[in-house]
Protein backbone atom coordinates (compact mmCIF):
# COMPACT_ATOMS: atom_id res chain seq x y z
CA UNK A 1 0.00 0.00 0.00
CA UNK A 2 3.00 2.29 0.38
CA UNK A 3 4.67 3.18 -2.85
CA UNK A 4 8.30 2.09 -3.01
CA UNK A 5 11.00 4.54 -4.00
CA UNK A 6 12.92 4.55 -7.20
CA UNK A 7 16.10 4.90 -5.20
CA UNK A 8 15.69 1.42 -3.73
CA UNK A 9 14.22 -0.51 -6.63
CA UNK A 10 17.56 -2.26 -6.88
CA UNK A 11 17.85 -5.69 -8.38
CA UNK A 12 18.31 -7.92 -5.34
CA UNK A 13 21.77 -9.34 -4.70
CA UNK A 14 20.90 -12.85 -5.94
CA UNK A 15 19.75 -11.73 -9.40
CA UNK A 16 22.87 -9.58 -9.75
CA UNK A 17 25.13 -12.68 -9.73
CA UNK A 18 22.94 -14.58 -12.13
CA UNK A 19 23.29 -12.08 -14.95
CA UNK A 20 25.88 -13.17 -17.52
CA UNK A 21 26.91 -16.20 -15.46
CA UNK A 22 27.77 -18.09 -18.68
CA UNK A 23 30.36 -15.44 -19.70
CA UNK A 24 33.77 -17.04 -19.29
CA UNK A 25 35.46 -13.89 -17.99
CA UNK A 26 32.37 -12.80 -16.01
CA UNK A 27 34.55 -11.45 -13.20
CA UNK A 28 35.91 -8.64 -15.34
CA UNK A 29 32.53 -7.16 -16.23
CA UNK A 30 30.40 -4.87 -14.06
CA UNK A 31 26.83 -6.02 -13.83
CA UNK A 32 25.61 -2.60 -14.99
CA UNK A 33 27.19 -3.26 -18.38
CA UNK A 34 25.42 -6.54 -19.06
CA UNK A 35 22.01 -6.45 -20.75
CA UNK A 36 20.47 -9.91 -20.53
CA UNK A 37 16.89 -9.89 -21.84
CA UNK A 38 14.36 -12.31 -20.32
CA UNK A 39 12.29 -12.14 -23.50
CA UNK A 40 13.81 -11.10 -26.83
CA UNK A 41 12.59 -12.03 -30.30
CA UNK A 42 13.17 -10.80 -33.83
CA UNK A 43 11.52 -12.13 -36.94
CA UNK A 44 10.18 -15.18 -35.15
CA UNK A 45 13.59 -16.13 -33.78
CA UNK A 46 13.75 -16.38 -29.98
CA UNK A 47 16.92 -14.73 -28.63
CA UNK A 48 16.09 -14.40 -24.96
CA UNK A 49 18.61 -14.96 -22.22
CA UNK A 50 22.13 -15.93 -23.24
CA UNK A 51 21.55 -15.59 -27.00
CA UNK A 52 20.46 -11.97 -26.69
CA UNK A 53 23.03 -10.80 -24.18
CA UNK A 54 24.91 -7.57 -24.89
CA UNK A 55 27.85 -6.12 -22.98
CA UNK A 56 27.95 -2.33 -23.16
CA UNK A 57 31.37 -0.76 -23.71
CA UNK A 58 33.09 1.01 -20.81
CA UNK A 59 33.98 4.01 -22.97
CA UNK A 60 32.88 7.29 -21.42
CA UNK A 61 31.32 9.23 -24.27
CA UNK A 62 29.87 12.25 -22.53
CA UNK A 63 30.78 14.43 -19.55
CA UNK A 64 27.52 15.55 -18.01
CA UNK A 65 27.68 18.30 -15.39
CA UNK A 66 23.93 18.65 -14.63
CA UNK A 67 24.24 16.56 -11.44
CA UNK A 68 27.23 18.64 -10.46
CA UNK A 69 25.19 21.85 -10.75
CA UNK A 70 22.41 20.24 -8.70
CA UNK A 71 24.80 19.34 -5.87
CA UNK A 72 25.92 22.96 -5.55
CA UNK A 73 22.32 23.93 -4.76
CA UNK A 74 21.84 21.26 -2.08
CA UNK A 75 22.82 21.89 1.56
CA UNK A 76 26.54 21.36 2.07
CA UNK A 77 27.38 20.95 -1.61
CA UNK A 78 28.29 24.61 -2.25
CA UNK A 79 32.02 24.09 -2.87
CA UNK A 80 32.11 20.78 -4.71
CA UNK A 81 33.60 22.56 -7.74
CA UNK A 82 36.77 23.30 -5.78
CA UNK A 83 37.72 19.63 -5.49
CA UNK A 84 40.96 18.80 -7.27
CA UNK A 85 40.94 15.12 -6.38
CA UNK A 86 43.94 15.17 -4.04
CA UNK A 87 42.44 12.43 -1.83
CA UNK A 88 43.05 14.11 1.56
CA UNK A 89 39.43 13.40 2.53
CA UNK A 90 39.66 9.70 1.81
CA UNK A 91 42.94 9.55 3.68
CA UNK A 92 41.48 10.78 6.96
CA UNK A 93 38.06 9.18 6.58
CA UNK A 94 37.51 6.45 9.20
CA UNK A 95 34.74 4.89 7.13
CA UNK A 96 36.91 4.65 4.00
CA UNK A 97 39.42 2.57 5.93
CA UNK A 98 36.69 0.21 7.08
CA UNK A 99 34.74 0.15 3.79
CA UNK A 100 36.82 0.56 0.58
CA UNK A 101 33.61 1.02 -1.43
CA UNK A 102 33.04 4.33 0.38
CA UNK A 103 35.53 6.82 -1.06
CA UNK A 104 34.49 10.47 -0.74
CA UNK A 105 37.00 11.68 -3.40
CA UNK A 106 35.69 9.13 -5.87
CA UNK A 107 32.05 9.97 -5.16
CA UNK A 108 32.78 13.64 -5.74
CA UNK A 109 34.61 12.93 -9.01
CA UNK A 110 32.01 10.62 -10.57
CA UNK A 111 29.22 13.04 -9.65
CA UNK A 112 31.20 16.00 -10.98
CA UNK A 113 31.82 14.30 -14.34
CA UNK A 114 28.42 12.61 -14.49
CA UNK A 115 29.56 9.00 -14.88
CA UNK A 116 26.13 7.38 -14.45
CA UNK A 117 27.24 3.71 -14.39
CA UNK A 118 29.82 4.42 -11.68
CA UNK A 119 27.28 6.39 -9.67
CA UNK A 120 24.82 3.50 -9.89
CA UNK A 121 27.48 1.20 -8.53
CA UNK A 122 28.61 3.29 -5.55
CA UNK A 123 25.65 5.48 -4.69
CA UNK A 124 24.32 3.34 -1.84
CA UNK A 125 27.61 3.60 0.05
CA UNK A 126 27.30 7.37 0.54
CA UNK A 127 25.07 6.70 3.55
CA UNK A 128 27.97 5.15 5.41
CA UNK A 129 29.27 8.67 6.03
CA UNK A 130 29.07 9.25 9.78
CA UNK A 131 29.39 13.02 9.44
CA UNK A 132 32.43 13.21 11.73
CA UNK A 133 33.83 16.10 9.68
CA UNK A 134 37.48 15.02 9.68
CA UNK A 135 37.55 15.32 5.89
CA UNK A 136 36.33 18.93 6.00
CA UNK A 137 39.11 19.70 8.43
CA UNK A 138 41.74 18.03 6.26
CA UNK A 139 40.59 19.41 2.89
CA UNK A 140 43.19 21.86 1.47
CA UNK A 141 40.62 23.59 -0.76
CA UNK A 142 37.77 23.94 1.80
CA UNK A 143 35.46 21.78 -0.31
CA UNK A 144 33.74 20.58 2.92
CA UNK A 145 33.45 16.96 1.74
CA UNK A 146 31.21 16.18 4.73
CA UNK A 147 28.72 18.71 3.41
CA UNK A 148 29.12 17.34 -0.09
CA UNK A 149 28.44 13.82 1.18
CA UNK A 150 25.20 15.01 2.75
CA UNK A 151 24.29 16.75 -0.51
CA UNK A 152 25.06 13.58 -2.44
CA UNK A 153 22.98 11.50 -0.02
CA UNK A 154 20.03 13.70 -0.93
CA UNK A 155 20.85 13.80 -4.64
CA UNK A 156 21.20 10.03 -4.96
CA UNK A 157 17.74 9.63 -3.46
CA UNK A 158 16.33 11.45 -6.45
CA UNK A 159 17.32 8.44 -8.49
CA UNK A 160 20.30 8.90 -10.72
Amino acid at each position, binding site marked *: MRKTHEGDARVSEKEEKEKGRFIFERGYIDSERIIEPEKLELGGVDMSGRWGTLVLPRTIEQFDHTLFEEVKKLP*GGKNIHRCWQCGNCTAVCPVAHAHPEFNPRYLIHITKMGYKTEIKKFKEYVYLCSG*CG*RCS*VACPRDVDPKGVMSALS*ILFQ*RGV
Partner: protein
Amino acid sequence: MDLNSVFPRELVTVLVVLFGSLCFALFYFRVRSWKVPFYPFYVVSQRSFKVFVENFLLLKRVGLWCEERAHTLSRALVLYGFFALFVCSVANYALNTSALTPLKPQNPLAILSDASSALVFFGGFSLLLRRLLNKRRREVTHADVWCVQALLSVFGATGALYPFFGGFVGITLYALHFVFLFLLLLVAPFTELAFLVWKGSFLIYKESRVSA
Protein backbone atom coordinates in the same frame (compact mmCIF):
# COMPACT_ATOMS: atom_id res chain seq x y z
CA MET B 1 4.23 35.13 42.46
CA ASP B 2 4.70 31.54 41.43
CA LEU B 3 5.37 30.22 38.00
CA ASN B 4 1.81 29.07 37.61
CA SER B 5 0.44 32.57 37.42
CA VAL B 6 3.21 33.72 35.15
CA PHE B 7 3.08 30.70 32.84
CA PRO B 8 -0.41 29.29 32.84
CA ARG B 9 -0.37 25.66 31.88
CA GLU B 10 -2.59 26.15 28.88
CA LEU B 11 -0.37 28.89 27.40
CA VAL B 12 2.73 26.73 27.64
CA THR B 13 1.10 23.68 26.07
CA VAL B 14 -0.31 25.74 23.24
CA LEU B 15 3.05 27.32 22.54
CA VAL B 16 4.85 23.99 22.63
CA VAL B 17 2.35 22.37 20.31
CA LEU B 18 2.38 25.41 18.01
CA PHE B 19 6.15 25.61 17.69
CA GLY B 20 6.42 21.85 17.46
CA SER B 21 4.09 21.58 14.53
CA LEU B 22 5.63 24.66 12.91
CA CYS B 23 9.01 23.00 13.22
CA PHE B 24 7.68 19.82 11.68
CA ALA B 25 6.03 21.71 8.83
CA LEU B 26 9.21 23.68 8.07
CA PHE B 27 11.14 20.46 8.17
CA TYR B 28 8.67 18.84 5.78
CA PHE B 29 8.83 21.68 3.25
CA ARG B 30 12.60 21.87 3.39
CA VAL B 31 12.91 18.17 2.63
CA ARG B 32 10.38 18.47 -0.18
CA SER B 33 12.42 21.34 -1.57
CA TRP B 34 15.16 18.80 -2.07
CA LYS B 35 12.73 16.82 -4.28
CA VAL B 36 13.26 13.64 -2.27
CA PRO B 37 10.69 11.47 -0.44
CA PHE B 38 9.83 12.53 3.11
CA TYR B 39 10.77 9.31 4.83
CA PRO B 40 9.35 9.94 8.28
CA PHE B 41 5.91 9.23 6.76
CA TYR B 42 7.01 5.80 5.66
CA VAL B 43 8.85 4.90 8.76
CA VAL B 44 6.07 4.33 11.24
CA SER B 45 6.00 0.58 11.63
CA GLN B 46 6.73 -1.96 14.31
CA ARG B 47 9.72 -3.23 12.38
CA SER B 48 11.27 0.21 12.03
CA PHE B 49 10.90 0.95 15.74
CA LYS B 50 13.08 -2.04 16.53
CA VAL B 51 15.60 -0.84 13.92
CA PHE B 52 15.46 2.67 15.45
CA VAL B 53 16.20 1.43 18.88
CA GLU B 54 19.02 -0.81 17.75
CA ASN B 55 20.78 1.65 15.43
CA PHE B 56 20.19 4.92 17.19
CA LEU B 57 19.59 4.47 20.84
CA LEU B 58 22.18 1.75 21.11
CA LEU B 59 24.47 3.90 18.99
CA LYS B 60 25.30 1.05 16.68
CA ARG B 61 24.94 3.20 13.59
CA VAL B 62 25.36 6.76 14.78
CA GLY B 63 28.64 6.42 16.59
CA LEU B 64 30.10 3.44 14.79
CA TRP B 65 32.77 5.11 12.77
CA CYS B 66 33.41 8.24 14.78
CA GLU B 67 36.91 7.54 15.85
CA GLU B 68 36.90 10.24 18.44
CA ARG B 69 35.29 8.76 21.52
CA ALA B 70 34.48 12.20 22.81
CA HIS B 71 32.62 13.18 19.69
CA THR B 72 30.44 10.08 19.83
CA LEU B 73 29.88 10.60 23.54
CA SER B 74 28.78 14.21 23.21
CA ARG B 75 26.42 13.29 20.40
CA ALA B 76 25.00 10.52 22.58
CA LEU B 77 24.59 12.95 25.50
CA VAL B 78 22.57 15.34 23.38
CA LEU B 79 20.51 12.50 22.00
CA TYR B 80 19.74 10.83 25.30
CA GLY B 81 19.38 14.15 27.12
CA PHE B 82 16.83 15.49 24.71
CA PHE B 83 14.96 12.21 24.58
CA ALA B 84 14.88 11.88 28.37
CA LEU B 85 13.88 15.53 28.79
CA PHE B 86 11.02 15.03 26.38
CA VAL B 87 9.82 11.96 28.24
CA CYS B 88 10.10 13.68 31.63
CA SER B 89 8.23 16.76 30.49
CA VAL B 90 5.42 14.69 29.07
CA ALA B 91 5.26 12.62 32.25
CA ASN B 92 5.38 15.78 34.36
CA TYR B 93 2.62 17.31 32.29
CA ALA B 94 0.48 14.19 32.64
CA LEU B 95 1.01 13.63 36.36
CA ASN B 96 0.93 17.18 37.61
CA THR B 97 -2.49 18.76 37.04
CA SER B 98 -1.32 22.26 37.95
CA ALA B 99 0.94 24.36 35.80
CA LEU B 100 4.39 23.35 34.84
CA THR B 101 5.55 24.74 38.17
CA PRO B 102 9.13 24.06 38.96
CA LEU B 103 8.94 20.93 41.01
CA LYS B 104 10.29 20.90 44.46
CA PRO B 105 13.86 19.64 44.13
CA GLN B 106 13.26 16.39 45.97
CA ASN B 107 10.56 15.23 43.55
CA PRO B 108 12.14 12.27 41.56
CA LEU B 109 10.68 13.44 38.22
CA ALA B 110 12.21 16.89 38.75
CA ILE B 111 15.60 15.42 39.47
CA LEU B 112 15.35 13.28 36.36
CA SER B 113 14.29 16.13 34.05
CA ASP B 114 16.93 18.35 35.60
CA ALA B 115 19.57 15.69 34.99
CA SER B 116 18.51 15.19 31.39
CA SER B 117 18.67 18.94 30.84
CA ALA B 118 22.16 18.84 32.23
CA LEU B 119 22.98 16.02 29.81
CA VAL B 120 21.80 18.14 26.90
CA PHE B 121 23.92 20.97 28.17
CA PHE B 122 27.05 18.88 28.57
CA GLY B 123 26.54 17.25 25.17
CA GLY B 124 25.87 20.49 23.33
CA PHE B 125 28.54 22.44 25.09
CA SER B 126 31.20 19.79 24.55
CA LEU B 127 30.37 19.76 20.82
CA LEU B 128 30.63 23.56 20.83
CA LEU B 129 33.90 23.45 22.73
CA ARG B 130 35.34 20.82 20.40
CA ARG B 131 34.74 23.12 17.50
CA LEU B 132 35.93 26.27 19.25
CA LEU B 133 39.23 24.94 20.46
CA ASN B 134 40.58 23.65 17.16
CA LYS B 135 41.55 26.49 14.79
CA ARG B 136 41.05 24.48 11.60
CA ARG B 137 37.75 23.05 12.78
CA ARG B 138 36.62 26.58 13.66
CA GLU B 139 37.34 27.70 10.13
CA VAL B 140 35.36 24.99 8.42
CA THR B 141 32.27 25.18 10.67
CA HIS B 142 29.19 26.72 9.12
CA ALA B 143 26.92 29.23 10.85
CA ASP B 144 24.05 26.80 11.27
CA VAL B 145 26.21 24.37 13.24
CA TRP B 146 27.32 27.10 15.65
CA CYS B 147 23.73 28.17 16.06
CA VAL B 148 22.37 24.73 16.88
CA GLN B 149 25.15 23.83 19.29
CA ALA B 150 24.90 27.16 21.10
CA LEU B 151 21.13 26.86 21.42
CA LEU B 152 21.41 23.30 22.69
CA SER B 153 23.91 24.39 25.31
CA VAL B 154 21.92 27.33 26.68
CA PHE B 155 18.66 25.38 26.42
CA GLY B 156 20.22 22.60 28.49
CA ALA B 157 21.84 25.03 30.91
CA THR B 158 18.69 27.04 31.65
CA GLY B 159 16.68 23.83 31.98
CA ALA B 160 19.16 22.46 34.51
CA LEU B 161 19.63 25.66 36.58
CA TYR B 162 16.18 27.13 37.03
CA PRO B 163 15.09 24.80 39.90
CA PHE B 164 18.01 26.03 42.03
CA PHE B 165 17.02 29.68 41.88
CA GLY B 166 13.96 30.96 43.50
CA GLY B 167 11.98 34.02 42.68
CA PHE B 168 12.64 36.26 39.77
CA VAL B 169 15.88 34.59 38.58
CA GLY B 170 14.21 31.19 38.56
CA ILE B 171 11.34 32.47 36.54
CA THR B 172 13.49 34.21 33.93
CA LEU B 173 15.65 31.10 33.61
CA TYR B 174 12.54 29.02 33.19
CA ALA B 175 11.19 31.44 30.59
CA LEU B 176 14.53 31.49 28.78
CA HIS B 177 14.47 27.69 28.80
CA PHE B 178 11.29 27.75 26.72
CA VAL B 179 12.46 30.63 24.53
CA PHE B 180 15.54 28.66 23.57
CA LEU B 181 13.38 25.60 22.96
CA PHE B 182 11.18 27.53 20.57
CA LEU B 183 14.23 29.06 18.87
CA LEU B 184 15.69 25.62 18.50
CA LEU B 185 12.46 24.33 16.97
CA LEU B 186 12.39 27.23 14.51
CA VAL B 187 16.06 27.03 13.53
CA ALA B 188 16.47 23.26 13.36
CA PRO B 189 14.72 22.71 9.99
CA PHE B 190 17.21 25.07 8.32
CA THR B 191 20.33 23.49 9.74
CA GLU B 192 22.27 20.27 9.30
CA LEU B 193 19.92 18.72 11.88
CA ALA B 194 17.25 18.57 9.19
CA PHE B 195 19.51 16.52 6.99
CA LEU B 196 20.53 14.27 9.88
CA VAL B 197 16.90 13.57 10.82
CA TRP B 198 15.97 12.96 7.18
CA LYS B 199 18.96 10.66 6.63
CA GLY B 200 18.25 8.85 9.91
CA SER B 201 14.66 8.19 8.94
CA PHE B 202 15.76 7.07 5.46
CA LEU B 203 18.27 4.61 6.92
CA ILE B 204 15.64 3.25 9.29
CA TYR B 205 13.24 2.94 6.38
CA LYS B 206 15.89 1.17 4.24
CA GLU B 207 16.95 -1.12 7.06
CA SER B 208 13.42 -2.12 7.96
CA ARG B 209 12.35 -2.58 4.35
CA VAL B 210 15.26 -4.72 3.23
CA SER B 211 15.08 -7.15 6.12
CA ALA B 212 11.27 -7.20 6.11
